[in-house]
């Protein structure tokens, strides 16, 4: 090993530790009893309360109203994450299909309008969106939680770029083969976009899972909380309760909240990378 590789590895290791250490500390701390944490602070090595803590968090209702378990919140988060990502993929594929393959007036202009919404974060339109959802009576429903979020400029952009890279001859061959507008989409474009779909599903699942502000203002009942909000709630209880602060539960919840996105990325990593780098059509 020469000096060069030693240095690059050193930097790499430092970087990796920088990223993983907080997660490690959170996980380790969550396996200790609340008294230990209160007395000694953050923990670097495993304690003996792993099963106890996680059992309590997952299956015993917590929160302010003692109505919701982590498992329930996880279910809500999963619904949001999956609905959000699947919805985004479907909507943006249709949008991109129209923009790329249909000749209609101002198609390009409309695309740039959609593209420009990339510059606007959700927070900009959160009040009007809330008003619309509230007027439709969709507060505290999964529909209200998901639908306002599923229009996706990012997804539309990615699919547009991908569709444009599909050779025109494929479309022409399909037309001569008698494929209708719909069957060209389903039989040719969707299978060709498989890896692209996977990549966008993964990204969007993580984004959806991590949504905080929108679920926070959309849900009023504790049983509709998502995990990310649950964490916030538990910290709130910590400070207000007057009981012994339950830091280990907060950390356990944090670990639980990071698990599904991590799993999704790990399991689909191959597809994900393929989708981002694939050039062979």
């Amino acid at each position, binding site marked *: 090993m020469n000096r060069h590789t030693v240095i690059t590895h050193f930097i790499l290791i430092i970087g990796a530790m920088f990223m993983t250490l907080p997660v490690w500390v959170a996980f380790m701390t969550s396996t200790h009893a609340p008294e230990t944490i209160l007395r000694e602070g953050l923990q670097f090595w495993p304690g003996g309360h792993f099963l106890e803590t996680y059992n309590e968090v997952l299956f015993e209702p917590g929160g302010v109203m003692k109505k919701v378990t982590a498992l329930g919140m996880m279910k809500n988060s999963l619904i949001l994450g999956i609905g959000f990502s699947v919805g985004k993929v479907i909507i943006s594929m249709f949008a991109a299909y129209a923009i790329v393959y249909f000749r209609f007036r101002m198609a390009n202009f409309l695309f740039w309008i959609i593209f420009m919404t990339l510059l606007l974060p959700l927070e900009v339109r959160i009040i009007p969106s809330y008003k619309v959802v509230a007027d439709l009576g969709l507060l505290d429903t999964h529909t209200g939680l998901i639908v306002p979020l599923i229009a996706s400029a990012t997804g539309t952009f990615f699919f547009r770029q991908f569709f444009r890279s599909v*050779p025109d*001859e*494929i479309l*022409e*061959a*399909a*037309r*001569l*083969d*008698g*494929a*209708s507008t719909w*069957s060209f989409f389903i*039989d*040719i474009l969707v*299978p*060709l976009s*498989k890896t692209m779909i996977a990549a966008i599903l993964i990204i969007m699942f993580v984004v959806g899972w991590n949504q905080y502000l929108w679920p926070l203002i959309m849900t009023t009942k504790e049983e509709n909380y998502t995990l990310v909000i649950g964490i916030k709630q538990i910290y709130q209880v910590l400070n207000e309760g007057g009981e012994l602060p339950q830091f280990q539960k907060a950390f356990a919840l944090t670990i639980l909240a990071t698990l599904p996105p991590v799993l999704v990325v790990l399991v689909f990593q191959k597809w994900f990378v393929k989708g981002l780098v694939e050039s*062979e*059509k």
Partner: protein
Amino acid sequence: MAEVELKGVRKVYPNGAEAIRGVDMQITDGELVVFVGPSGCGKSTLLRMVAGLETITEGEISIGGRVINDVSPSDRDVAMVFQNYALYPHMTVRGNMSYGLKNRKIPKDEITRIVEETAKMLRIDDYLDRQPNELSGGQRQRVAMGRAIVRNPKVFLFDEPLSNLDAKLRVQMRIEIKRLQRRMNVTSIYVTHDQTEAMTLADRLAVINEGRVEQMGAPMELYTNPRTLFVASFIGAPQMNLIPVRFDGTDLGDGVSRFSGFSDLPMDTDLVLGVRPDILSIMEDGQLDFRVDLVEQHGGENLIYGTIVGSDQGAAHGLEICLKANQQMLPKVEDTLQLGFDPAKAFVFRKDTGERLV
């Protein structure tokens, strides 16, 4: 089986560019017609108009007596083979070949039978369950043809189908296409920019230039009897030698050499003398002084390139001439030869209109 008829066909793009400027053509049943021309001449556009992939601005195209201007591509009963094969990358060979039939709601076992039969004919039956990216270029080309054949169309359209193949395979596939077309006896239109391909494949050739058919006829007719300067220079390899000349009442002259044996030509305009490389030969009393600068040995014959002595006066380059000779003839570079030709076998064109005079 069907004949194809084009009547006053024009194509103008929305930006005003005129791609096809009035084409009339009749293709008889079972005939293989080749559209040939330089890139950008409109030959592909014309083919795509027959296929229905481009709209027809003006005029009429009919297949088997039915006007198909407003008929969708899939209902025109045509099949097309594309230059880059345009196979569906995610489908197997079988999937590629059956897709069109599936869309036509043909029963499954019928599809299987047709596909397998065609695959056998094209010798791709061993690859039916492979995907296009596992096949070689020649095999992909066969699959593309198979996809066209299974639909049993009235007209085959080929859009430069061999230009992505290497030279050897191209010759092989060319012969195969010709045989296949003979055997199936389906009216075919074949687009290429390669004049050898055009000459060897065609029953009839249409030389296309700037959106017009310059001349249409049997390959040998176009070779021996070209109607315009463009056709004469496009057909034949190596290219015909073109020498700018004027007529002085008795002889043709280019300021350096004089060519006798011509009469009744206009004296007031620039002319072009066309001499094919194979009618040039070395003669004692030849009219052309020729300086060799390159000899290409092709095995059976040699191509000798050089310039006309004296033609570089007042010009940056001398006039280039090519001569086809047998393999024994091996002049050295910078040798000067006397060349002559039989005036009866030469052509004379008007320079401004390209019209052939002799």
